């Protein structure tokens, strides 16, 4: 599904409204009016009626305030009361970062195959012939599937010469690679958080926008307003997500009130360093291969669903954690906020205890809009501590293993790293991961990214993955040219100095 759609727009508009009210100190006073403003009287409703639309907006706001739907006990409790609680809490409620709005879930019909009117009732009838359960009969000149016999194998769909048979899926269940979302007796979807890997795919695929992320945006705003010092850790994927370039974004973040800004690519350099060392040790120790560890949805997926692969995951920490440690060391007592396009990172941050809050791309965008900071209008900041090109390329699939391979090549002789990339965790690739141990693979460094394309295609992104990847590559290119120019100039200067002597 294209992610630029009505559900996305509503979410972003609400984020901006909440951020704007919170920054003005009007949240508690005004939030009860937001559902009415969003769905005014007299306009055509999206669902059955404006009241249902408004109820769903209320629940969306609840998630934006940081609450899980599952915790609601009194339906009459107004948003203002939740807002008050949210404004006064010191810590975000732990617990799953995803939550399902049952009021928004349309309780889709169980996934099934269906014969449409395009059926011509042909003579050959390959559907009838190929159905292993004899579930198809001809009624009034058209094929009909008996749901009580059908096992959803899909053979009839494949063989129909008129493409008359369609699969009616349940989008969230279809998107979940690990089968963590399913219906209750009412047909509403529930996530089994004991097996969910927080890849965020269900959230994006639900056409009703019923699966939402619990936001920590309000906690960040409150901390900024309280005058406490906050440090921002910016994921390298963010560079491709907003207008303007990274040095301008740094200025924008400082204008928002962040005390300091760290590029998480700095931590990625640490990851490259450690992972290269670890890979060499493991290969020399006779292990056939190692896998990367920077994608938290992947590591959780292995933990729960492919435990046999666990010993092969690198013990190296993720770029976020290295950067967080550095930021904490250099700024004792400050709070640390990670900004990225990922749902699973939020879970990783909570579990690690090293990151205080996580903002996603949309929430950062909403904060900037609410504070009327236009990134392309910001003066570019000077970037010190420039990370390597390889580290800045981390959000593009294939680049992590490439950077590690390059590092090994530069530092150790006689070891050849052959990277393989598993680009995206879907059901098929999950099967592949389960077979990796059994099959002898050509590669000895396996990179796995839960999102196809890498973090540039993360669950909460604003730009299209291709455009985002290109922007990151352009920015790296621009810096390399600048760097080599400075080096050239230094070289020329040195020469001149030598000449002068």
């Amino acid at each position: 599904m294209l992610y630029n759609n009505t559900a996305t727009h509503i979410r972003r508009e609400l984020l901006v409204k909440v951020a704007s009210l919170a920054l003005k100190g009007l949240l508690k006073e005004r939030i009860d009016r937001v559902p009415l403003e969003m769905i005014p009287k007299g306009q055509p409703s999206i669902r059955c009626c404006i009241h249902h639309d408004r109820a769903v907006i209320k629940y969306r706001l609840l998630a934006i305030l940081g609450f899980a739907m599952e915790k609601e006990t009194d339906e009459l409790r107004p948003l203002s009361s939740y807002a008050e609680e949210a404004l006064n809490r010191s810590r975000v409620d732990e617990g799953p970062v995803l939550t399902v709005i049952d009021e928004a879930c349309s309780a889709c019909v169980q996934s099934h195959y269906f014969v449409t009117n395009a059926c011509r009732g042909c003579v050959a009838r390959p559907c009838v012939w190929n159905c292993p359960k004899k579930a198809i009969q001809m009624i009034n000149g058209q094929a009909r599937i008996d749901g009580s016999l059908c096992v959803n194998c899909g053979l009839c769909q494949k063989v129909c010469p008129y493409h008359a048979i369609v699969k009616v899926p349940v989008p969230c269940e279809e998107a979940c690679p690990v089968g963590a979302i399913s219906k209750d007796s009412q047909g509403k979807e529930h996530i089994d958080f004991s097996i969910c890997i927080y890849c965020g795919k269900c959230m994006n695929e639900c056409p009703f926008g019923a699966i939402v992320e619990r936001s920590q945006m309000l906690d960040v705003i409150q901390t900024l307003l309280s005058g406490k010092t906050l440090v921002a850790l910016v994921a390298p994927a963010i560079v491709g997500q907003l207008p303007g370039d990274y040095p301008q974004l740094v200025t924008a973040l400082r204008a928002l009130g962040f005390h300091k800004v760290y590029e998480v690519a700095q931590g990625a350099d640490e990851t490259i360093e450690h992972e290269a060392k670890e890979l060499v040790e493991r290969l020399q120790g006779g292990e056939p291969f190692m896998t990367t560890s920077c994608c938290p949805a992947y590591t959780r997926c292995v933990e729960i669903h492919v435990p046999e692969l666990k010993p092969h995951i690198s013990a190296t920490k993720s770029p976020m954690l290295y950067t967080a440690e550095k930021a904490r060391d250099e700024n004792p007592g400050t709070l640390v906020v990670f900004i990225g396009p990922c749902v699973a990172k939020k879970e990783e941050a909570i579990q690690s205890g090293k990151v205080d809050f996580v903002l996603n791309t949309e929430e950062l965008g909403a904060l900037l809009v609410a504070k009327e900071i236009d990134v392309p209008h910001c003066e570019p900041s000077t970037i010190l501590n420039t990370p390597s090109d390889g580290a800045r390329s981390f959000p593009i699939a294939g680049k992590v293993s490439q950077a590690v391979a390059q590092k090994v090549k530069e530092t150790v002789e006689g070891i050849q790293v052959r990277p393989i990339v598993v680009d995206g965790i879907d059901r098929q690739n999950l099967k592949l991961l389960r077979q990796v141990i059994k099959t002898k693979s050509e590669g000895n460094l396996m990179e796995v990214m839960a999102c196809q394309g890498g973090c540039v295609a993360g669950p909460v992104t604003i730009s299209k993955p291709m455009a985002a990847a290109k922007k990151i590559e352009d920015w790296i290119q621009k810096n390399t040219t600048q760097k080599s120019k400075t080096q050239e100039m230094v070289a020329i200067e040195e020469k001149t100095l030598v000449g002068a002597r």
Partner: protein
Amino acid sequence: MKPSKDAKNIHVVICSGTTCFLMGASELFGIEKTIEGSLASRITVEGSPCMNLCKGGSYGKAPFVRVNDTLISTATLPKVIEEIRRQASL
């Protein structure tokens, strides 16, 4: 890209301020690839810094796109393409 003075040329300006970008302008770039070839050669596409149309709400909602002199609010690819086609047929 500079707007051409050729009367047949259709100039598309996409606001790339943070608000418009967040509300979907990011998806509008690449319109040359989406639109039919005969029109693709007639349009010039340009990103603009914030056009200040999002403040106050009197021009509608972001994202904003200008197709020559016509302003489109809540711009989507189909909406912009429709306007380009309309102007091309004038």
